[in-house]
């Protein structure tokens, strides 16, 4: 194009260009926008809340004092009202975990990852930011949901022998712990989605590890199972969501630490793959 070569040298007084720069905070803000701007995020979060509060309310409503404690037609109510109110934790964990997988694997299935990495070619900040954004959102939303479920259950069971109040020993720890557990599940979903780069694969591994593997471990010889079972992701992570730990369970915070270890290892593997592999 002749015009280009003719005019180019004369444009000496180009206007000062704004100094843009990629920073951690900006990458976080971008991931925040990304998270809230796909419809699956609010929908799945609401679903998780609905499961957490709804299932807890149903369990509290259908509680029959005559059949408890330790009746044959229901789980033993070792923790009293709070275990009824948080009956939905497992279901909520599936919703949150699946959303976590979609948050990261969705970038690969749609091709968005190429735009993301073109904007942040150092790569790893996007991964940390994505995990942090979803971890914080999932923790806060589900902790609030757990509180709501507990208060609703307390209102329903008011006057029953198993009724509990917020001030009772350990109640706040369990409610916060439920948020922390579900937040970690969400982050684990993000890590698995990024590691496998596939929504279907990530969801399959997540659901399998959370729900199926703990059941399979009972097939192992007892001597091995006793040493392995408590350290499985969902068993370890859920310790903090119970008021009283079962005999073979890890302590609440030890359990959190072990589950966080699973999440951390997966995140590091995902980061390694992100840094090394062609996008």
């Amino acid at each position, binding site marked *: *194009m002749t*015009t*280009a*070569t003719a*005019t*180019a*040298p004369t*444009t000496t007084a*180009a206007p000062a*260009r*704004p*100094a*843009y*720069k*990629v*920073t951690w905070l*900006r*990458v976080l*803000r*971008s*991931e925040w*926008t*990304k998270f809230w*701007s*796909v*419809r*699956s995020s609010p929908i799945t979060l609401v679903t998780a809340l609905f499961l957490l509060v709804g299932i807890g309310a149903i369990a509290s409503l259908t509680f029959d004092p005559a059949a408890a404690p330790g009746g044959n037609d229901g789980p033993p109510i070792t923790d009293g009202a709070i275990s009824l109110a948080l009956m939905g934790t497992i279901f909520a964990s599936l919703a949150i975990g699946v959303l976590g997988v979609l948050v990261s694997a*969705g*970038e690969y299935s*749609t*091709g*968005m*990852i*190429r*735009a993301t*990495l*073109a*904007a*942040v*070619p*150092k*790569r790893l900040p996007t991964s940390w930011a994505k995990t942090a954004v979803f971890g914080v959102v999932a923790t806060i939303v589900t902790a609030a949901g757990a509180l709501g479920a507990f208060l609703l259950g307390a209102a329903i069971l008011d006057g029953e022998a198993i009724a509990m109040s917020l001030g009772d020993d350990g109640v706040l720890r369990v409610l916060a712990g439920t948020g922390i557990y579900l937040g970690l599940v969400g982050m684990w979903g993000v890590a698995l989605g990024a590691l496998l780069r596939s929504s279907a694969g990530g969801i399959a591994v997540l659901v399998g590890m959370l729900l199926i593997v703990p059941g399979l471990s009972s097939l192992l010889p007892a001597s091995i199972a006793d040493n392995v079972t408590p350290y499985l992701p969902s068993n370890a992570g859920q310790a903090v969501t119970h008021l009283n730990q079962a005999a073979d369970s890890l302590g609440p915070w030890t359990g959190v630490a072990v589950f966080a270890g699973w999440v951390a290892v997966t995140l590091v593997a995902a980061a390694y793959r992100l840094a*090394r592999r*062609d*996008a």
Partner: protein
Amino acid sequence: MIDVHELTKRYGDKTAVDRLSFTVKPGQVTGFLGPNGAGKSTTMRMIIGLDAPTSGSVTVNGRRYAEHAAPLQEIGTLLEAKAVHSGRTAFNHLLALAQTHGIPRRRVDEVIELAGLQTVVHKCAGTFSLGMGQRLGIAAALLGDPEIVMLDEPVNGLDPEGVLWVRHLLSGLAAEGRTVMLSSHLMSETALIADQLVIVGRGRLLADTTVDDFIRQAGRQDVKVATTQAERLRALLSGPGVTITATTAEELVVLGLDAHRIGAIAAQHGVPLYELGQQTVSLEEAFMDLTSDAVEYHSAPADTAARRAA
């Protein structure tokens, strides 16, 4: 300025890019040409670090792409493959990209207007037509107001109006003194806008030249003239260094005189012309001659049969 040095990319035992070296000079439009599978898209992905080279190196404005503080300000890229989440609106897509760099919302609105996306900006990108998607990709490429714009087949799938829009946009960017690199399969289309040509085949450099040189070397500066007085015109035009062939009774192909001269001579002698034009096909032919050995996917049987029939 993009500096590609001995760049090589292998996928398994397939060599997509083979010791490729060239530079994209500042302030120029560089056409990046080659047949299907020549390695154009792979090279562009390596330029912005999406794919890591097997060996060799590439720098953008003197540094590896990832080392820039604000990469979107150095070079804006439209990739061949879709790079947008189908469930996100065009606006939020651009906003999220802008936020990584601290690019103000005002600039997001600017590129939306520039790309003519105002009416669909709050629709999910997944619902976009091919052309709208291409516009969104170009809007994203311009977000950082970059010095270099690199577009992989920007007119791919666009309707004639869209093609024209891209052509005007690129001329505009070039006129502002920006560096433009665009890939294409079409020599004739590229020659309209490019200054410089980088031609590749099977991952190797086949030619690194200017458009003018390419046309000159192609040596087929022939002009097609159609007139009702072919014999008379033929006599008027013939002279030393001029070769004239008649393709039909009313058509001449003239080599050695440019369209200006032929038009002037015809007017001077009152010979009516109803067609007069540079043979652009020859450019395409020269390109095909150059790349024919390097064509990855020959469409042999059907093609040769058709040509024989013609």
